[in-house]
């Protein structure tokens, strides 16, 4: 039999049992649609995470105090207070490390914020002028912290968009005075909204000059009286120079800290972070797909079930075909092709349903979660491949049973 005959005969006999065939196909449709929509939801989450990191710029190095790194991801801020503002200035010195284009040290602490009758508690971040550029932030109104503010330890504050809304609602905060831990700060600007990110609510924070944060707000001080920092973001001129810059910064800091053995700082590469995160989210996406795959498996069992019934019902037909010269292989191919038509047909419809479903979900808020879906061809290929494989796997046993029938016994079957 040629391919056309095989397909024709498979379709004919499936068509003879329309309801039964379509219910069996439905099992696969649901499985494939679930795989596709869940995986595209997963990919959507992955994309928005990566996008957020990339929006920071991929040419960033993060220097943190203490050897607290774990697999490239940093959990919380370094605990040891070994990095200082002077370290940051040293790194930014173009004669020391020419490939560094900007350096943004930061010192984070928490503060109780009060304006009039509104109050909130949030992260207060001590930063320098460079922070805005290095972190790729935009102001929605007002200005940013200047070099003068840092030198003079000025009591000025730039609000995150969420914090601004909490305290001021729709009023313009610029020029207003708020209290941070009972100290009066003048609001000079508000940041644009960044949306929720992997590092927590970027919109819910207050930026102040780093010196002010250290001398007026932070609780810990070093013995030498230097301004300590939690994190130094280093912008490197070119992504290709990342490794080189990393090495130079490490050498510089070792020298400055007079280290002989273990480093008291950690340098994280934005690129590494991205890769690790992508690996993690990949696992997550595969996991989602696997969960949906279970329903595909159930659909496959449905195919096997119906094919076994069909083989029994058509025992006489098998006998007749064998009497007319069909070989085992002919019968095997016949029943296999029916199983595969069911599974691939289900796979095809499932792909369409899955695409429709992920389009439907895209950009919608369900159960308080905002869903974004990213749909890609490889998911379709995967889903089709898996459903064909399921047809093969679950079709083979019934088909072998059919092929093994003895012609006379099959002809006599009532």
């Amino acid at each position, binding site marked *: *039999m*040629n391919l056309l*005959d095989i397909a024709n*005969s498979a379709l*004919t*006999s499936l068509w*003879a049992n329309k309801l039964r065939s379509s219910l069996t196909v439905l099992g696969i449709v649901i499985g494939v649609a679930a795989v596709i929509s869940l995986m595209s939801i997963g990919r959507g989450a992955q994309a928005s995470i990566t996008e957020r990191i990339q929006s920071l710029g991929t040419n960033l190095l993060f220097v943190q105090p203490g050897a607290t790194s774990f697999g490239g991801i940093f959990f919380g801020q370094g605990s040891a207070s070994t990095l200082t503002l002077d370290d940051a200035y040293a790194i930014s010195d173009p004669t020391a490390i020419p490939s560094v284009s900007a350096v943004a040290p930061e010192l984070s602490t928490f503060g109780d914020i009060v304006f009039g009758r509104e109050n909130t508690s949030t992260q207060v971040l001590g930063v320098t002028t460079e922070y805005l550029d290095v972190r790729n932030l935009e102001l929605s109104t007002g200005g940013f912290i200047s070099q003068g503010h840092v030198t003079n330890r000025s009591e000025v504050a730039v609000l995150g968009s969420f914090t601004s809304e909490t305290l001021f609602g729709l009023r313009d905060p610029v020029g207003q005075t708020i209290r941070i831990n009972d100290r009066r700060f003048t609001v000079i600007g508000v940041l644009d909204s960044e949306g929720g990110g992997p590092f927590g609510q970027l919109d819910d924070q207050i930026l102040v000059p780093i010196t002010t944060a250290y001398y007026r707000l932070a609780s810990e001080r070093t013995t030498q009286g230097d301004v300590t920092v939690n994190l130094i973001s280093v912008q490197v001129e070119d992504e290709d120079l990342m490794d080189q810059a990393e090495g130079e910064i490490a050498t510089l800091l070792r020298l400055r800290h007079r280290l002989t053995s273990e480093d008291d700082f950690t340098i994280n590469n934005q690129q590494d972070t991205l890769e690790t995160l992508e690996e993690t989210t990949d696992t997550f996406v595969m996991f989602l797909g696997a969960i949906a795959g279970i329903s595909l498996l159930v659909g496959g069992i449905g195919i096997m079930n119906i094919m076994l019934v069909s083989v029994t019902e058509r025992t*006489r*037909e098998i*006998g*007749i*075909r*064998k*009497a*007319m*010269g*069909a*070989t*085992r*292989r*002919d019968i095997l191919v016949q029943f296999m092709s029916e199983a595969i038509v069911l599974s691939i047909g289900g796979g095809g419809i499932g792909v369409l349903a899955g695409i429709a479903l992920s389009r439907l979900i895209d950009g919608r808020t369900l159960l308080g979660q905002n869903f974004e879906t990213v749909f890609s061809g490889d998911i379709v290929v995967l889903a089709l491949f898996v459903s064909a494989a399921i047809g093969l796997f679950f079709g083979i046993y019934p088909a072998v049973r059919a092929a093994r029938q*003895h*012609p*006379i016994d099959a*002809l006599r079957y009532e």
Partner: protein
Amino acid sequence: MIVLEGVTKVYSLGAVQVRALDGVDLSINRGEIVAVMGVSGSGKSTLMNILGCLDVPTSGSYSLDGEDVGSLDDDKLAYIRNRKVGFVFQTYNLLPRLTALANVELPLLYGRGRRQRRQRAQEALERVGLADRMRHKPAELSGGQQQRVGIARALVKDPAILLADEPTGNLDSRSSEEIISMLIRLNRDEGITVVVVTHSPEIAARTDRVISMLDGRIVDDTPVDRDR
């Protein structure tokens, strides 16, 4: 050329053994038309199934055109069923969902020689006088017409041997007469070797040779004397 030597077929039903064929020696020449008779349960169908390569003997040898069928594998047996013998059943054994034409095409789906399927099936149906019933399904045909479809299906690959196991068993006398005349004509005009199982002495009398069976043995094997 069919040659059977000491062919035995034993069915085991638990502890009980049924000897459906018990040492059958038989040879049938090319171009003969042979009737097989005998009471129910005497082993006629068992013999036909072995002749048609639908079943294999428990012991003894069967050679078809000089080839030892007993030593053939499944695929080779399927090839013989497809090419060398045509089998006509008492219960027609047509596929109910297919039209007469598609039923006749069935043997052409398997094995080699698949070209001009439609045309060859049409010709076979014309040979049995069913040119006007090609698009009918079996349920839309009379018993005699269904059996003619069965014969067309058996003939479509131009086999040298036609085996018919009680082809008229389910038919009235007029249809029976048509079927038997057709088998005889195929033998006389086209030289096809025909073996037909029948309970009817009248039918048997119209063949060349009558084989009588009892308890799995051939008890009588006589040429028909037409001048009587």
